């Protein structure tokens, strides 16, 4: 992971007139510095993103499909490394430590991820699914601690009352919304510093979506959340800060209220008013 800042990138950043000074936050959990991601040599899918994500808040990343919002999110927990044609450069600081220089397994443990489609492990019981992060990391907990952790995690995602008598059943009979909550429980059981959510409600019906959104509002007391969404109203409902990305660039980053009422860039306004996307 080369960390050198490409001069050209800085030039584009400065000269590009539709990039406004990004939001400055005081207490940053996650900081992107000149982050570029490329799927093929010489072609960047993400172009020099600079931003700081606020601790204890929900930050939404919006934009039309293909704008690079998921790509940016997956750079944080280094999922791109699973595919050797993808290259990430720049710096991503998680609590002032560059994740690109850290041990990938450590990073992923500290950054929980929730995927588009619920993906509970079909071979594991609900109980084991919540603890999957521990078993996959080869960590053995005492029985009492395990039970407490499962209960607490499932309570956190408001799933405990629904499944407390079914903990030893496989998770596959759960509804999509329940499965997604189980996956969130699995992610937060590891007590991550930040929770990365990649369009977590796109495969769910409106009622389940509503549940998850309410859940996120309570979870932000404990976790900093970054959520990628293609749904503007979702971003408006739940997020504190919003990023708008277009064609691999971070066009605008501001308080959600400000951005939705008074967008600085024309592109953002066009997107928010539904003229494209």
């Amino acid at each position, binding site marked *: 992971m080369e960390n050198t800042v490409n001069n050209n990138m800085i030039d584009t950043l400065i000269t590009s007139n539709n990039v406004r000074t990004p939001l400055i936050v005081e207490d940053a959990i996650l900081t992107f510095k000149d982050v570029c991601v490329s799927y093929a040599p010489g072609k960047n899918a993400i172009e020099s993103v600079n931003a700081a994500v606020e601790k204890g808040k929900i930050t939404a990343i919006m934009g039309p499909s293909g704008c690079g919002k998921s790509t940016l999110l997956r750079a944080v927990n280094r999922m791109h490394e*699973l595919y050797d044609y993808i290259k990430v450069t720049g710096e991503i600081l998680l609590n002032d430590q560059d994740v690109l220089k850290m041990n990938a397994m450590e990073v*992923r443990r500290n950054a929980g991820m929730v*995927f588009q*489609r619920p*993906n509970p*492990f079909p*071979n594991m019981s609900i109980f084991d699914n919540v603890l999957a992060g521990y078993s*996959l990391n080869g960590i053995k907990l005492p029985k009492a601690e395990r039970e407490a952790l499962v209960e607490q995690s499932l309570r956190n995602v408001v799933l405990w009352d629904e499944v407390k008598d079914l903990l030893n059943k496989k998770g596959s009979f759960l509804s999509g919304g329940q499965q997604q909550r189980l996956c969130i429980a699995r992610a937060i059981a*590891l007590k991550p510093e930040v929770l990365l959510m990649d369009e977590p409600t796109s495969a769910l019906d409106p009622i389940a979506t509503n549940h998850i959104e309410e859940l996120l509002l309570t979870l932000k007391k404990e976790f900093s959340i970054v959520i990628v969404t293609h749904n503007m109203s979702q971003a408006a409902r739940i997020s504190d800060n919003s990023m708008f990305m277009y064609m691999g660039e971070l066009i605008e980053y501001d308080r959600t209220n400000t951005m939705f009422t008074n967008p600085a860039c024309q592109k953002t306004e066009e997107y928010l008013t539904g003229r494209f996307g």
Partner: protein
Amino acid sequence: MKDLLFKKALFTASLLLLLIGAGMVYTLFDGALPAFDAFGFFKFIGSTAWDPHPDREAYGALPFIVGTLFTAFLALLIAIPFALPVALFTGVYYRGTKAAHIIGAIVDLLAGIPSIVYGLWGFYTLRPWIIESGFSTGGFGIFTSAVVLAIMIIPYASSLSAEFLSMVPNDLKEGAYSLGATRLDMIQQVVFPFAGSGIFASFILALGRALGETMAVTMLIGNTNNLPLSLTATGNTMASVIANQFGEADGLKLSALIAIAFLLFILTALINLAGKFIIKRFNQ
């Protein structure tokens, strides 16, 4: 009118297949009947006699059944530690990449080598090594046959199990990685539990192949009619005794050989059905 005729033709062809299948079972059973009549079905299976002398003619299938099961299971045991890595490499680590395609092509190439060529290799290359290592004096026998059988079923077992390994959804793998798993953790806790029954079925089907393999074993097992009880023992499998003695057999001996073929048919059919059944359940 034309359509009706066409559909009739399709149906007739399918019916023909059923008749052939039924005819095969009938022919084997009918040919085996004299031997079963003369010695009794269970006595024939349990007897170690093999004496063509007209005055005391007696035949039993036990040494060949034992020889078949012994070589085939041993072959499977030897094959698994080589087949599984190939399957993991092509189905998990390098799924869908050029490296996987190249290795897949080599595996197909291995699968295409005829049994008799494997037999020659076993006879002229492997056997001298075994003699030299001091493992057995003649170099023939159960172990030598099992090694060559193992080499023959590795391609089949690995390409089949790679198929099941590659069916593990990417969602699940990414889910495991996102929690901090290494590839090994992911394979142990996500891939194997998911694809386990499919892999098991692949090995069962590979075992079915090994049970019926003829030429290579015939060239290497030593072709003796005794009960093989050690790795270095010579013996015969059901297939190899038929290949060896069918040409000069008639009367009761011919019937005994057909009876062995009948038993081999039942054995392989059961093994294959078990494998296919597991795969069917896996796919649901």
